[in-house]
């Protein structure tokens, strides 16, 4: 899987040390990747604290499973995949809770945009707002392909859906974004 998030031989050396529990290797890999993973999770979760929790879960899962990482993709891509799966699991859990607690799955747009502006000062708030308002499927596909730079095939593999599904979700996302931004 080609990586929009780097990966080289030095990194594989750090991964090898990380498998042995090396603290410095953790710092190196975390420092290299956490900001990209957090940007991805912030847009997926649309809540700063939820994204922080998801980032924590992602890195803990990554370290627990680091022996299984073989380097077929870049380390960053591998961690992105874990991050998206972590988000999807959390979203399913929230959806179950929302059945019990009315309105539990709603997101606070004002809170999200304040957090987005703080975490990414150079971002466009209009675009972030429109992106955040997309329905989940279209939003996930747009974030992975149009913002993060994954191919349709990679996004399909990460999301666990068919390529055709990703294409139709991207098409829907573009149409809805056009309607929101053309006002």
């Amino acid at each position, binding site marked *: 899987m080609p990586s*929009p998030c780097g990966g080289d031989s030095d990194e594989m050396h750090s991964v090898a040390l990380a498998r*042995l*529990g*090396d*603290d*410095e290797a*953790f*710092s190196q890999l*975390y420092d290299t990747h*956490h*900001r*990209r993973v*957090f*940007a991805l999770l*912030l847009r997926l979760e649309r809540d*700063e*604290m939820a*994204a*922080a*929790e998801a*980032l*924590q879960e992602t*890195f*803990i899962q990554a*370290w*627990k499973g680091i022996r299984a990482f073989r380097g077929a993709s870049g380390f960053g891509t591998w961690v992105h995949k874990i991050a998206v799966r972590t988000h999807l699991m959390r979203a399913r859990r929230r959806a179950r809770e929302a059945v019990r607690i009315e309105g539990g799955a709603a997101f*606070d747009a*004002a*809170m999200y*945009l*304040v*957090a*987005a502006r*703080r*975490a*990414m000062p*150079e*971002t*466009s708030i209009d*675009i*972030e707002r429109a*992106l955040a308002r997309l329905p989940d499927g279209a939003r996930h596909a*747009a974030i992975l392909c*149009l*913002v*993060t*730079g994954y191919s349709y095939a990679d996004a399909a593999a990460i999301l666990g859906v068919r390529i055709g599904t990703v294409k139709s979700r991207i098409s829907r996302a*573009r149409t809805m*974004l*056009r309607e929101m*931004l*053309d006002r």
Partner: protein
Amino acid sequence: MNDTKHFADWEAKIDAALARLPREAAPPLFLREAIRRELQTTRQLVVPPSDRWWSGLMRIAAAGAIFVAGLAVGRTDENRRASAATSPAADVQRTGTQYVASIARLNLAAGGSSAERVDGPEVAVAALAAAAAEVASFTPNDTLLSQLARVARGAREHLGTRGNR
């Protein structure tokens, strides 16, 4: 034909705008240490010899330590998410965002009632001054934080005086 071209132009513009969005974001600062400590606790990371309680690394921000303590307490609880969400550092982060979001909403409502236009900034600055005073009390010898508290208090008094006219 024109519609098709118009749509294609829009599509290209949207794709370009999305591709220009930043791909990196800064997470809360306490997270790095929280993750590291969690991995050390579960033995995924080996604690280096220099990383004893007296070492420099232990002089991390109090917020980070409190956050980890919150996590450690919550580990026995099946719902760890709740413990992370209720740690004091996370609480400050969340309520800080709520505070700023509320001011943003206040700005949007600025065209509303005259009471909102007058009371809004006063209430916002009063909260800011109280927060600055609390933060300054962490490190009483920090000149910059003391100045921040003084300026915020001055702004609150200024708005209070203006409101009383």
